[in-house]
């Protein structure tokens, strides 16, 4: 019995003690080893006790302990020990990774300042050529989304009889926001390959290409929102102060698209057929984002809400409609959460690009 008690308490710390000692190549003195063992003993058993306390076992008496409790306690101790040793083993890499990330973020700030003018100029030039190469000039930027809206409101409004208040504007908002996201993501996949001419002659941070493209798409999106404004006037929508929420919502949409785009930009270089998958996934997402219907009203009870919560674009579209059409406010918390997640993903993506952009030129 005593053996069992001792084993339960003593064995798990041995795991860490051994691994930790091995890592330091046994250059420690005997006294230090004992001290370390004591430390790990306290840490592991403290952890296990905390777990069992949280599970409802408040006291700790060896007498009325069941075998199953002992086994559980022992297992928890082992898991804790393995976890801690894992952290010890990768500690240096974790620290290194964080250090690199900080460096990359710093570099991102510098590069962004340096190349911002370039990307704006490139975006302007792109817009200009688009105008120059078509008969109806910039009118297309109005005609295209407008026609799309007619198609979708016919299909969903007349054929399927879905209906929401201010239906045309409702669809138009969804469509505009979604196409902004979709265009950026699908163009990001082949961005590096299509810019081969430029990047094989001169250095440019590769995400600048995407950023510039996003400025182009963003400009068109703003025009579409101009149309939304006209619709709101035509519908005589009650305009409230909540309309100002549209600014943070649009910033969020930009961040989300940029983050997702940067990640796919990197993988698109190495995986040639990624664009097919992306197209399929985007198509699927379009229907799950509630572009033509309200997710929370149309999809059966728990799923609609869930879809709206886990999909940032769906959430942002719903928020845009609330803010612009229905005079409701948006939740600052959700906006901040999505902005935060996007920024983290963006930074990881940027760091990934910095680490790998050297080989992009050689692959494409």
């Amino acid at each position: 019995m005593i053996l069992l008690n001792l084993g339960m308490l003593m064995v798990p710390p041995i795991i860490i003690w051994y691994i930790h000692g091995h890592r330091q190549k046994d250059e420690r003195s005997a006294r230090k080893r004992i001290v370390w063992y004591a430390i790990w003993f306290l840490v592991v058993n403290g952890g296990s006790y905390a777990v069992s306390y949280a599970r409802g076992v408040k006291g700790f008496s060896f007498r009325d302990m069941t075998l199953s409790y002992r086994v559980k306690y022992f297992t928890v101790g082992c898991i804790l020990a393995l976890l801690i040793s894992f952290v010890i083993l990768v500690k240096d890499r974790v620290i290194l990774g964080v250090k690199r990330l900080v460096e990359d973020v710093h570099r991102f700030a510098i590069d962004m300042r340096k190349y911002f003018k370039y990307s704006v100029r490139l975006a302007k030039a792109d817009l200009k050529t688009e105008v120059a190469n078509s008969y109806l000039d910039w009118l297309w930027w109005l005609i295209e989304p407008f026609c799309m809206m007619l198609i979708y409101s016919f299909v969903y409004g007349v054929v399927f009889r879905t209906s929401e208040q201010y239906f045309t504007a409702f669809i138009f908002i969804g469509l505009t926001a979604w196409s902004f996201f979709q265009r950026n993501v699908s163009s990001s996949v082949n961005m590096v390959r299509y810019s081969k001419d430029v990047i094989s002659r001169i250095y440019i941070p590769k995400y600048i290409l995407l950023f510039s493209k996003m400025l182009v798409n963003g400009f068109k999106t703003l025009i579409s929102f101009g149309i939304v404004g006209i619709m709101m006037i035509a519908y005589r929508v009650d305009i409230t102060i909540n309309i100002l929420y549209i600014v943070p919502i649009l910033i969020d949409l930009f961040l989300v698209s940029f983050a997702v785009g940067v990640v796919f930009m990197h993988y698109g270089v190495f995986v040639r057929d990624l664009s097919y998958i992306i197209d399929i996934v985007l198509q699927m997402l379009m229907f799950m984002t509630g572009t033509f219907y309200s997710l929370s009203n149309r999809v059966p009870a728990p799923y609609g809400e869930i879809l709206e919560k886990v999909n940032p674009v769906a959430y942002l579209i719903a928020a845009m409609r609330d803010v612009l059409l229905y005079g409701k406010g948006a939740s600052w918390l959700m906006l901040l959460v999505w902005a935060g997640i996007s920024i983290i993903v963006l930074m990881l993506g940027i760091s990934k690009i910095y680490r790998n952009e050297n080989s992009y030129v050689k692959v494409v």
Partner: protein
Amino acid sequence: MGRKKREGKQGNAIEVRDVSIHYKLFDNITIRHSLFRKHKKEDVFEAVKHVSFSVKEGGILGIIGKNGSGKSTLLRSIAGVFSPNSGTIDLKGHSVALMALGIGFKNTLTGRENIILSGMLLGFTEKEMMDRLQNIIDFAEIGSFIDKPVSTYSSGMHSKLAFSITAMLETDIMLVDEVLSVGDEHFRLKSLAKMKELIEDKNRTVIIVSHSIDMLREMCDEVLWLHDGEIKEIGEPVEVLSHYAAFMTR
């Protein structure tokens, strides 16, 4: 003023230390390949192996070697297109431009936009580029095509414009990759003259990659012979070039 100071110093403008560059040969990664093929060990091709050299302020270095010996890779690395896998390249803060055929143009944009954008990537501001724009357009002699998309250009016009941009921007360091004969006879003579003028400017440091032995002998202070990514010989043009010629005709 600044230039004179630098001239007096007579330091190195480019220092390349122990540079290696390798390519991973994983060309066709598709999802089918990665799922249904056993993982092969990545083939690594070493294009440049442990190369070290330096070029003096205002010096002219020629690089010669057979095809595929890593000359262009090395040059692109000095231009900063990608950084070397190991070793360092120190340009001492000089501005650098790579002059190569088919310079990075965006095909859908007009020549004029491309001039400005290329310049901005090379570190010039929008205003500086506006000032130089007319010079470049005049030199390129491509007439009204300057306002047409680059995709409509003939290959001659393309290279004329590319040459003009790098020639008129006058960066401290100029890297030349086999562009000594562009366009028709008239433009060829003109560009050759301009090139000589640029190269012979005592303030400009130049690296020329070429297969033309005569031209390198005439222009360079020093010649580097690259063979399979390694330095075979570096030194006096006459000596290195005659060894190279003997090696190639063997």
